[in-house]
C-alpha cells in the first residue's frame, strides 16, 4: 500500500546515493517538483534513466547529482540543446557523465521488459546503425524460430521510479490520462515508486480501462499541485513554453545556472516556496 506523505519524506526514505532512478513523463506530467527535491537533498552518483532527458535532467546533471545517463533523446523540446548535459558530456562539468544511448523504441521496450521482469527486450532495429558500436548493451540475437537477426537490449529495472499524475484517492490508487508515455511501465518495472499528484480525492470516478496504478504498486503518493510545471498536466494547466525558452539562457552559462539552482532550489524549503521565488523572479524578468 502506498503511504501518503510529503515529497521530502518520500524522497529521503526511498532514494539513496548511487541508485538507478527513472523520472518519466513524455513532455507531459514531468515530475519537476520531485527532481528539485533530489537536488535539494544533495543526492549523488545517481544513474539517471529517461527517454527524453529534457530540462528536469539538465537541472539534475548540472547540479552534480548524476554519474551516468541512460537515454534516447536529450534536448530542450522546441528550443534546442541542453547546455548542462552538453557541458557534462563535452567538458566533464561539474563532473564526468557516462552516457548510454538508445532509441525510443528500444528504451520503451526495455521498460516493458522491466515491468515483465524479463532480462531483455527484443526489437527489429539498429541494423547498419553506429549506436551498437558505442553502446555495448545493444546486442544482436538470432530468432530461434525464423533465424532473423534482431536487436536485444537489457531490461530497465530502476531502484526508484518517480512520476507525476493527475489524481490519487485516499488509499493511494493513482489515475493518469492524456499522453501516457512509459510511466505505467516505468513504475511497474521499479523496486520502489513515488507518485506526485495534482490532487487527492475521495473517489477517482475512473472509467473502465483507465490508466490506474493500484495503491499496492506504489511506495509513496505526495500531493504536489503544480508539481509538473513547467511541463503540463492535462486538465489542470498548460505547458509554460516561456520557461523552456528562458531555460536556454539560464543554463547556457555555468554561473547563471548555479545562481538559479541556489536561489530557486537550494535556498528554498520546498516546492511551494520554489513557486513563490519563481513567480517573483519571473515578474522581475530574471527567472
Amino acid at each position, binding site marked *: 500500500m502506498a503511504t501518503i506523505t510529503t515529497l521530502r519524506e518520500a524522497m529521503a526514505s526511498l532514494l539513496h546515493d548511487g541508485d538507478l532512478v527513472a523520472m518519466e513523463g*513524455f*513532455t*507531459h506530467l514531468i515530475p519537476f517538483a520531485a527532481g528539485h527535491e533530489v537536488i535539494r537533498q544533495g543526492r549523488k552518483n545517481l544513474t539517471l534513466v529517461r*527517454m*527524453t532527458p529534457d530540462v528536469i535532467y539538465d537541472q539534475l546533471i548540472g547540479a552534480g547529482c548524476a554519474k551516468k545517463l541512460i*537515454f*534516447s*533523446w*536529450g*534536448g530542450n*523540446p*522546441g528550443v534546442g*540543446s541542453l547546455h548542462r*548535459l*552538453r557541458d557534462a*558530456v*563535452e567538458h566533464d562539468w561539474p563532473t564526468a557523465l557516462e552516457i548510454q*544511448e*538508445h*532509441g*525510443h*523504441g*528500444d528504451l*520503451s*521496450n526495455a*521498460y*516493458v521488459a522491466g515491468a515483465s521482469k524479463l532480462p531483455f527486450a527484443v*526489437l*527489429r*532495429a*539498429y*541494423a*547498419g*546503425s*553506429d*549506436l551498437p558500436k*558505442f553502446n555495448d548493451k545493444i546486442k544482436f540475437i538470432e530468432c530461434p524460430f525464423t533465424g*532473423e*537477426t534482431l536487436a536485444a537490449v537489457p531490461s530497465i529495472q530502476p531502484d526508484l521510479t518517480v512520476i507525476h499524475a493527475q489524481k490519487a484517492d485516499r488509499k493511494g490508487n493513482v489515475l493518469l490520462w*492524456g*499522453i*501516457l*508515455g*512509459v510511466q*505505467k*511501465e516505468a513504475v511497474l518495472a521499479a523496486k520502489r515508486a513515488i507518485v506526485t499528484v495534482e490532487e487527492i480525492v475521495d473517489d477517482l470516478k475512473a472509467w473502465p480501462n483507465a490508466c490506474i496504478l493500484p495503491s499496492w504498486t506504489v511506495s509513496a503518493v505526495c500531493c504536489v499541485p503544480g508539481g509538473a510545471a513547467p511541463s*503540463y498536466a*492535462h486538465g489542470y494547466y*498548460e*505547458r509554460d*513554453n*516561456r520557461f*523552456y*525558452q528562458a531555460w536556454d539562457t539560464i543554463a547556457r552559462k555555468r554561473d547563471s545556472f548555479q545562481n538559479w539552482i541556489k536561489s530557486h532550489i537550494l535556498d528554498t524549503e520546498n516546492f511551494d516556496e520554489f513557486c513563490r521565488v519563481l513567480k517573483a523572479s519571473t515578474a522581475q524578468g530574471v527567472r
Partner: protein
Amino acid sequence: MTPQEYSTSEIMTIAASRLLKNGAVCFVGIGVPSTAANLARLTHAPDIVLIYESGPIGAKPAVLPLSIGDGNLAETADTVVSTPEIFRYWLQGGRVDVGFLGAAQIDRFANINTTVIGDYRKPSTRLPGAGGAPEIASCAGEVVLVLKQSARAFVKKLDFVTSVGHLDGGDARKRLRLPGKGPVAVVTDLCLMEPDPASKELTVTQLHPGITREEVVRATGWEIRFAAELRETATPTRVEIETLRDLERRTNLAHGTVTEAGTGST
C-alpha cells in the same frame, strides 16, 4: 507567385507537404516534418493520419505542437496509446506508410546523423540523439527527409550513423532484411532529391524556382548528381502559402513566442 514572395523555408515545407498522399499513415517528427504534415492535412490531404511518438494516433492539432507531446495532440487524436505501444504495435507492426524526419547530417545514401558532430566520446557538438528515428528509418513503409541544405549538413562521410537510409547503396537494405523501403525523397530549401533506382545514390530531380545547379553543388559536400531530366518545383499556390502562414501565425500566438501585434515567423 514569384520567388520574392515566399521564403526558401516556405517552399521547402510546401514541397515536402506535397509528397504526402491523402489517407497515408504518417509517423511525424517534430519541427519542419510536423509543419509540412499538418500543412498537407490542411490542404490536399484532409484524411492523412498523423502519428506522433508520444502516443497520439490521428492527431489534428489546430496549432503546431512545440514539443512532441503537446496536449493538443492528445485532445485532437482518434486515440492516444502508450509510447511502447506506438513503437511495438503501430510502427514495428507495419502500420506506418511514411516516416517523416529531419536530420543534422545526411550522406549520399540518405543515412542520417542526429547524434554527434566530431568524435563520439569527445564531440565538438553533442546533438539530441536518436529519438525514434532508428526504428522509424527501419520500419516505416518509406521515409521522407526534410532539412536545409548546406555543405556542413550534406557531407561525404557522416560523423555518426544514427539511422540508416540506403547504407552503402544498391540492395543493402534488402540484404539486411530491413522491412521498409527507406528514404524515397530528401526535400531541402533548394531542391528535391530522390535515390537512383539502382545505386540508391541521391540524385537531384527537381530544383525549386530560381535555384541554380551551382547553388546546389556549393551546398553539397559530395559530387552531387543531377537527373537527366531536371524538373522545376511548382511554385507555391496562394492556398498553400496562406494556409502555411496562417498555421504559423496561430502557432506563434498560442505558444507565446510573439505578441498579438507580432506577425510571427512569416
